[in-house]
């Protein structure tokens, strides 16, 4: 079916980012479906690449680390002629069940799910298990989910990456039984 043809890009594996053979070209996504709701939403999403394809993906940066004054950082950035300033990022909150406080992550730093998940794993020091299209995440107590624009909680990886970036409002790394229910929705 067409709706699943686009999901190859979002297929998760345990390999390191950049090791898959899928073309790094951005695709125009002509139709996307949410796993949770059967009704189609036709979206033309043009995704923009901030960095060139050859530069390595940036990992999640913790706020205020390393401790260099923004004054100094700005000077260095002006010189590097970087066009990406903090304000242009797509910042969403990330909470993890059991962790006492929230973090923020810039979705525009990543090109695909594997990079995002890797960054989350590093930030919160956990591992996410393996993703299966129909069964969700296996092999870990932690399940990465996100809340979309409609307020629905979805499994990370269910929709094509570009759609995810556009509709994601916040992330939540669920733990335990609560997560299982979500992972099994078809």
């Amino acid at each position: 079916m067409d709706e699943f043809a686009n999901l190859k890009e979002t297929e998760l594996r345990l390999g390191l980012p950049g090791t898959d053979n899928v073309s790094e070209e951005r695709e125009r996504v002509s139709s996307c479906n949410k796993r949770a709701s059967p009704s189609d939403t036709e979206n033309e999403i043009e995704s923009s690449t901030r960095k060139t394809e050859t530069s390595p993906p940036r990992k999640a940066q913790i706020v205020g680390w390393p401790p260099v004054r923004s004054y100094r950082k700005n000077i260095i950035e002006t010189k590097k002629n970087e066009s990406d300033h903090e304000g242009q990022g797509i910042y969403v909150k990330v909470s993890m069940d059991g962790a006492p406080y929230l973090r923020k992550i810039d979705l525009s730093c990543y090109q695909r799910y594997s990079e995002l998940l890797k960054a989350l794993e590093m930030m919160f020091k956990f591992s996410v298990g393996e993703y299966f299209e129909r069964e969700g995440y296996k092999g870990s107590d932690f399940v990465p989910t996100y809340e979309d624009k409609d307020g629905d909680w979805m499994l990370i990886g269910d929709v094509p990456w570009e759609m995810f970036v556009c509709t994601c409002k916040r992330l939540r790394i669920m733990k335990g039984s609560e997560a299982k229910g979500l992972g099994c929705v078809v």
Partner: protein
Amino acid sequence: MKEDRSEMAAKDVELDPRSAAISEPLSSSSSSPAAFNAVVSAGNKSRSCKSSLPVTQPPCPGHVLENVLENVLQFLTCRRDRNAVSLVCRSWYRVEAQTRFEVFIGNCYSLSPSRLTRRFKGVRSLLLKGKPRFADFNLMPPDWGAQFAPWVAATAMAYPWLEKVNLKRMFVTDDDLALLAESFPGFKELILRCCEGFGTSGIALFANKCRQLKVLDLIESEVTDDEVDWISCFPEGETHLESLSFECVESPINFKALEGLVLRSPFLKKLRTSRFVSLEELHRLMVQASQLTSLGTGSFSPNDVPQGEQEPDYASAFRASKSIVCLSGFRELTPEYLPAISPVCANLTSLNLSYANISPDILKPIIRNCHNIRVFWALDSICDEGLQAVAATCKELRELRVFPSDPLEDSESPVSALGLQAISEGCRKLESILYFCQRMTNGAVIAMSENCPQLTVFRLCIMGRYRPDHVTGKPMDDGFGAIVKNCKKLTRLAVSGLLTDEAFSIIGEHGKLIRTLSVAFAGDSDMALRYILEGCPKLQKLEIRDCPFGDVGLRSGMHRYHNMRFVWMSYCRLTRGGCRDIAHALPSVVAEVFGSDVDDDDDNADYVETLYMYRSLDGARKDAPKFVTIL
């Protein structure tokens, strides 16, 4: 360049308590002198002004003695000595208050402006610090506070002879600057470090009104570009300017006006220009002002490509500036021109290249002439090789700062243990170091602890979080442990890398003189915090982020928070309840909690993202924004 620590040049005067009029000691109240002294201290520079308070009553023995004391106390400049003097008795307290001309307030919220003006009647110099340091790293939402406004209002009424104001991390508006300029006819020195809230229009007004101005230093502050030609607003005629620093002003400058200003400022010794001054323009300034001792070189890049026409002889201008001992700037350096500074290298005591991304090959020919350098700031682009060159030549080096050219956690860092080791072996007189790197070894840190016993400031930032010694794989405990054990004069320490609770046990035990401690992503448990709070007897400023420290750890410091300037803990394991308990138990301490997100409404409301706790004589502040909760 910042001069954070002024020398303590106290002239010790032998005071014989028996000859003073002894009355009963001051009773302790909520505003006991000891508590006041703790938050307000005298400055360090000597000020030999006579007190202008007239004696109208017929002299009685008490007053005679007070006059004598007054004249004696003038020579007492060390702030801690003055505090001690004020505690002797009521009479001494009074006289000390009359003769204190310089006041240092380390935390603007530790007391109210009215308390200051009630005690001290003749203040001429005020140093105020506002936001805590971690605010520099986006860990504090904007508009948190530290407004200068109430202070300028109070001092405008109380101290018509105020001459100097030195502010750090304060919020200063154009209106504040206007009031400052209008209220103090003899105003001489304004130094704004890491401040914000004002713009070029405020500076323009200030420059125009202060006819006695000697010093205007804007250092690492955010200055809004109101498109006002502020340099033209200095009054006509000869000025009293001795120091003008505007490196941080990010707006174009009217060069003709600047040149004219320099020409009519015969006393100008320090000139630090912004990056909007080109190399050609710098040359012109230098030629007019060969008496300069400190020069901020602006962009150090020519405006135009020299077109057949002979370009200025930059080296000759430096040769003519025989007095230059301090160089900074180089904001947009064209490396080919750096050798122009060679004529002054042998005299340099301070060189700041930290805005110039230069390679070792560019640095080496320059640094090999800098035998007298005491302060050196650079980017890590100079690599270990550059640091080795520094170590080989700069035997008088006291302060080194190596900043990251790529301040990201996973970037490649061109400096490493090798550079640190080299510096430790070559620069034995080192007193202060700030070193950014990606990874480090215990061996190099231990070597520094053994080779540089004069260290008072050791700040090592291993940018990769939780990184162990990359050779042995062990935590960095041994390295930092050696620093606190061997560097007996250490007053400031910043730790990083993988550190266990054991490291903090050693720090707590051996860090006897440590006043400032910065901890990030370290420790295993509350024990680490306990070790710190139960040790380090001189600890004043504690800043912590992302450590597994909770309420139990916080509680272990209850006995000492009233004696500290502040404690900052963000992204730890503190709960609201835990913080509230501390706040209720310690009435002289104010506990603020807030998050980095101003409109945070998350479910984890029980956990505290940031706790900022400080002692205060006047309770909670009235100007806290909505996102701050004072427990």
